[in-house]
């Protein structure tokens, strides 16, 4: 079998919460290679101590999200040939989240904010009530559906500069989720949810950079959702309902 000639020079961030550095690995280039393939090769062949997350490896779970050449991506869905620059790659843990070790970050803040923004569905009806008919093309349902495919991979959170500038900011994923639920006619927690997203940690922090929409692998648009939240919050405030 022929030895592959091309080698990638891959710079990987190694370290933990107390600090770390980039370490360079020479990785053989393969056809149809993904960044996840690269990380896996390093862990298997070069350094078994390398820590990283993955699960489905087919672009459904979002576990493998990392910074690739400075941009947050699903590594299982990022082909080396699309992002490699002069045979070089840089792989780092997701931005805006504390590092546990190497490429693994602590997602706790992300989920705390998801809950704080009212991400949990609050039902109005019980199992004794008749099933509520939902028309899929009503404007509210269409708005809710447009935002609903979020798998909480935190790529938008990692790409958002306001998150890095304001530690309390709830962030694009949490606010996108809140928008989806605020448009859900079955939900009974709207007052509290609107208050949460209208607070000074909420939607008004967004400066519409649209990095979230640019990098979301599911092609969601938190910028648009947050604009919707601004409208809801403003109308409620002007009516004295906030």
């Amino acid at each position, binding site marked *: 079998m022929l030895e592959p000639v091309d080698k990638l020079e891959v710079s990987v961030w190694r370290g933990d919460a107390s600090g770390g550095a980039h370490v360079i690995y020479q990785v053989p280039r393969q056809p149809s290679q993904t960044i996840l393939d690269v990380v896996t090769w390093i862990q298997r062949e070069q350094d078994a101590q390398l820590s990283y997350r993955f699960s489905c490896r087919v672009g459904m779970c979002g576990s493998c999200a990392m910074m690739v050449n400075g941009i947050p991506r699903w590594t299982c869905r990022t082909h080396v040939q699309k992002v490699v620059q002069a045979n070089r790659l840089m792989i780092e843990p997701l931005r805006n989240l504390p590092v546990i070790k190497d490429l693994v970050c602590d997602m706790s803040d992300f989920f705390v904010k998801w809950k704080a923004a009212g991400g949990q569905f609050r039902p109005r009806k019980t199992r004794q009530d008749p099933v509520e008919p939902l028309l899929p093309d009503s404007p509210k349902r269409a708005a809710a559906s447009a935002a609903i495919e979020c798998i909480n991979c935190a790529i938008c959170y990692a790409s958002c500069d306001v998150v890095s500038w*304001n530690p309390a900011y709830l962030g694009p994923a949490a606010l996108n989720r809140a928008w989806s639920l605020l448009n859900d006619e079955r939900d009974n927690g709207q007052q509290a949810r609107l208050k949460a997203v*209208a607070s000074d940690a909420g939607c008004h922090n967004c400066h519409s950079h649209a990095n979230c929409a640019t990098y979301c692998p599911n092609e969601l648009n938190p910028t648009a959702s947050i604009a919707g939240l601004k409208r809801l*919050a403003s109308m409620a*405030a*002007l009516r004295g309902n*906030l």
Partner: protein
Amino acid sequence: MLDTRLYLLQRITAMIMAPLVLLHLGVMIVAIQGGLDSAEILSRTRGSLFWGGTYGLFVLAVSVHAALGIRVVLFEWLSIKDIKLTLVSWLVFAVLLMMGARAVYAVVA
């Protein structure tokens, strides 16, 4: 880090100022033709309730709008917080309002 109240104040002053900015730019483009001196400015503005009212409103709106805008920049980029942030924001508002009011008075009185 603006709550809904401050956000609305920022946006409403912006809406007030949009037509005023267009008016101001138009006036400037016309006024500077053939050079500009104090006599020319004053001949237009002295004793004018219209210019006094228009620019007075402009000064009030821009003082609020700029103070809130600077507030956000100071918080996000210089990490100034809490009481220091509130004090600086009010300071910016006060300086712009006072100097602006003096300027309007100076050309209208």
